């Protein structure tokens, strides 16, 4: 039993906007009252629901591949020392699993959504998530380049496609569905890409990315997944891709969907020399489709590692920059590409990218629809989120940063004209309440009675030069104090949310022979065993 008293509470999901009130916790949940137990004196603090990261890459084959590519990054990264209740680890851009849990919790984030899981290696992802302490997890399975599904969509076999998708979701033991560069990763298996939504994909007779997007969005809706189709649009990173992104919104025809890391998909211009911000156009288009949510995918200057299923983009980045390149194609399903990268403020394109993420967060009016992410570690590391929060809340500071960019870069962005400043309540929405709602996690992102007791307590005025939100005074997870004054106090094992869709069991008779033909393992070995998902919390449709 625990009472947090005297703190200024921000609980936007329940209409509480900076009210000094008590938060009572019992048995891991928020309750209306407690008698006895511990009291935390939270005077002089801000009390937030624990952070929810709706899109990050922290576990599984792709991330682990990246770890191996960059030993020099590990050498320079923050070290976590082994202790009686602490495992050794390495932070940095591709943290080891234990360090990932400590870093998120240390920042006040308590729920994490791993955004890209291939079914074939999903067992690996779940093992890594199990080794990621404290935070609760969910993950998304990659579907938009799954050849079995693509063949069915091309053939117009909508109902069968739905059962196959449902079977695959349960086989992977995941929470939601991810679409990365629909058709493009399939084309990459032949060294090509698919940037035009209405053009036939390499290797197919009539299938287009648009058909995949529309087909999957409908299936996800009909399966009643709590989180909508999560889309990494075609044509990521290319100047002029605003047309592709807006076209994607149209193709969805008003269905719900979540557009991932929108910053990378919001560039105007025709080529690299004319590349400019397209945030205004994107924000305008976004207003017209109220069933869409998005996350920023903001860029921060400094080191990053780009890890994405967008294989063709990574090959191009390697050829453009000469940096190290990793690529792993996964049979019949997806792939991943990795390029370590540095964003520099004197580099015009990088400067525009930095501005676009912030512009989107500031131009999109409704904070319930746009969430704080950096597509970690693509745009920057998740443990630098406080830097973005500062840029959103302090227009003067933001404008000072803009002055450091070249005049050329400044001429390509609109950020300097924006005066909006985020309030604390809005920050609580984009870091917690909003993503929790988009994920359909009704016990997360708020401090109402019945919610999971994931609470972060920040000093109202940070010490020294620290940014607000850098160092929570307390972080509670499931009612347990896990971080106190920057020290990990308790290490718990989080839960993993898994969705069980409804499907006709007979679909296995369709899948099995196809599987044996094109895969390279026994069908029996393909699905993830539920026992392998430790702390599983199954959500039924």
């Amino acid at each position, binding site marked *: 039993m625990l009472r947090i008293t005297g703190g200024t509470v921000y609980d936007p999901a329940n209409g509480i906007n900076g009210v000094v009130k008590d938060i009572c916790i019992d048995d891991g949940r928020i309750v209306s009252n407690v008698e006895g137990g511990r009291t935390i004196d939270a005077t002089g603090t801000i009390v937030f629901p624990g952070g929810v990261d709706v899109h990050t890459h922290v*576990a599984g*084959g792709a991330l*682990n*591949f990246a*770890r*191996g*590519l960059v*030993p020099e990054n*590990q*050498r*320079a*990264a923050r*070290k*976590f*020392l*082994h*202790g*009686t209740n602490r*495992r*050794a*680890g*390495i932070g940095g851009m*591709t943290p*080891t*699993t*234990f360090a990932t849990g400590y870093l998120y919790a240390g920042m006040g984030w308590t729920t994490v959504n791993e955004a890209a899981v291939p079914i*074939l*290696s999903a*067992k*690996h992802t779940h*093992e*890594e998530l199990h*080794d990621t302490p404290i935070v609760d997890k969910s993950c998304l399975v990659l579907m938009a380049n799954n*050849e079995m599904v693509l063949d069915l969509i091309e053939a117009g076999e909508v109902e069968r496609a739905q059962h196959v998708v449902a079977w695959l979701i349960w086989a992977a033991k995941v929470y939601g569905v991810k679409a990365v560069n629909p058709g493009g990763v399939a084309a990459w*298996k*032949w*060294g090509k890409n698919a940037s035009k939504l209405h053009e036939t994909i390499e*290797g197919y007779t009539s299938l287009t990315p648009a058909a995949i997007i529309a087909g999957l969005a409908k299936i996800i809706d009909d399966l009643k997944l709590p989180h909508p189709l999560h889309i990494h649009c075609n044509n990521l990173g290319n100047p002029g891709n605003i047309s592709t992104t807006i076209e994607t919104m149209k193709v969805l025809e008003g269905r719900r969907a979540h557009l991932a890391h929108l910053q990378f998909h919001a560039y105007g211009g025709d080529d690299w020399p004319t590349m400019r911000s397209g945030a205004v156009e994107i924000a305008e288009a976004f207003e017209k489709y109220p069933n869409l949510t998005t996350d920023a995918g903001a860029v921060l200057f400094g080191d990053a590692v780009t890890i994405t299923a967008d294989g063709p983009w990574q*090959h191009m980045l*390697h*050829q453009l920059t000469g940096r*190290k*390149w*990793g*690529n*792993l*194609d*996964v*049979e*019949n399903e997806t*792939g991943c590409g*990795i390029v370590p990268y540095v964003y520099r403020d004197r580099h015009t394109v990088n400067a525009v990218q930095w501005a676009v993420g912030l512009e989107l967060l500031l131009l999109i009016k409704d904070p319930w629809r746009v969430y704080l992410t950096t597509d970690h570690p693509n745009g920057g590391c998740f443990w630098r989120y406080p830097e973005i929060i500062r840029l959103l809340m302090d227009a003067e500071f933001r404008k000072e940063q803009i002055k450091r960019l070249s005049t050329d870069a400044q001429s390509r962005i609109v950020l300097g004209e924006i005066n909006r400043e985020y309030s604390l309540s809005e920050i609580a929405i984009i870091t917690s309440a909003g993503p929790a709602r988009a994920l359909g996690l009704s016990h997360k992102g708020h401090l109402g009675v019945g919610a999971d007791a994931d609470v972060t307590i920040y000093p109202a005025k940070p010490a020294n030069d620290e940014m607000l939100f850098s160092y929570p005074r307390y972080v509670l997870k499931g009612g347990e104090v896990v971080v106190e004054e920057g020290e990990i106090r308790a290490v718990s094992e989080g839960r993993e949310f898994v969705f069980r869709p409804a499907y006709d069991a007979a679909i296995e008779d369709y899948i099995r022979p196809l599987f044996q*033909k*094109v*895969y*390279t*393992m026994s069908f029996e*070995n393909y699905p993830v*065993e539920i026992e392998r998902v430790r702390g599983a919390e199954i959500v039924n449709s």
Partner: protein
Amino acid sequence: MGGKITCTLGEVKNRADFIVYWGGNPAECHPRHFTKYTLTQKGKFVPEGRKGRTMVLVDIRETPSARAADIFLQIRPGKDFEVAATMRALLKGQRVNEAVVAETGTTVAQLQDIVDRMKRAKFGVIFFGMGLSMTRGKHMNSGSILMLAAEMNAFTKFVCMPMRGHGNVTGADVVLRWTTGYPFGINLSRGYPRFNPGEFSTVDLLVRGDNDAALILGADPGATMPQPGIDHLARIPTIVLDPKVTHTSRLSRVHITTAVTGISAPGTAYRMDEIPLPLRPALKSPYPTDEEVIRRIRQVVAAKPAWAPAPHEGSGLS
């Protein structure tokens, strides 16, 4: 330093029309490789099966694998690095020294032919084995193949993959990377992971005598190490966990017999393409599993007073 371009084995089965085996003898060392993944399978995009694929074997001698090859490129021992460098130059249209190439046992014309065929392929793959990674040059030989495959992508789809040895070495690599950030040769003595092949890798440590105790699990260094390493293992307290009494057991202080993983002990193995596969034991064993033994050892160690190293800031040794 280009990178690593690879795929899972099903991609090879479904698409590969040009397959190179370099420095390995799959017919004898990976006996199901041809039939399950590479040559004889009818792939989704190679429905003709064997007829739709070209196999090139590159090795220092003609092994049984050569019988399955369309082209057998025999090169002199210790020349793999030079042959790969030549191919990389040829694929870029760069000059090479004909006389020096001849010393590899091949000709420029031969290598140019192979490079041209690689460029014409729709999907090429190079499988490289211990004939490269364990001979003079070691990681640079492997690195050569990685670079060659990466550079081929300027022309067509090309990947490469190491042919792994036994004992779930891939699984160890995968697990070590996610828990420590490094694939092997990890030093935890300062409380956090450090990596430096040559300094912390096993053979080097043992040969130099840099450790004062050893726990050996699932390996038999007493059979394969250089003699100074074996002598050192015999000198220090060595503990062996193995289903069998091995060469290493014979020079150890303690040998603990454990159940055979995969036969009597459950677990997960990672295939050479890093795909996890569950192991379902078929038999029971009277012996404990490796996992049980390690857990019990750890329990006893954890009960001892903590020695956790005091971090001295400013050293920041990585």
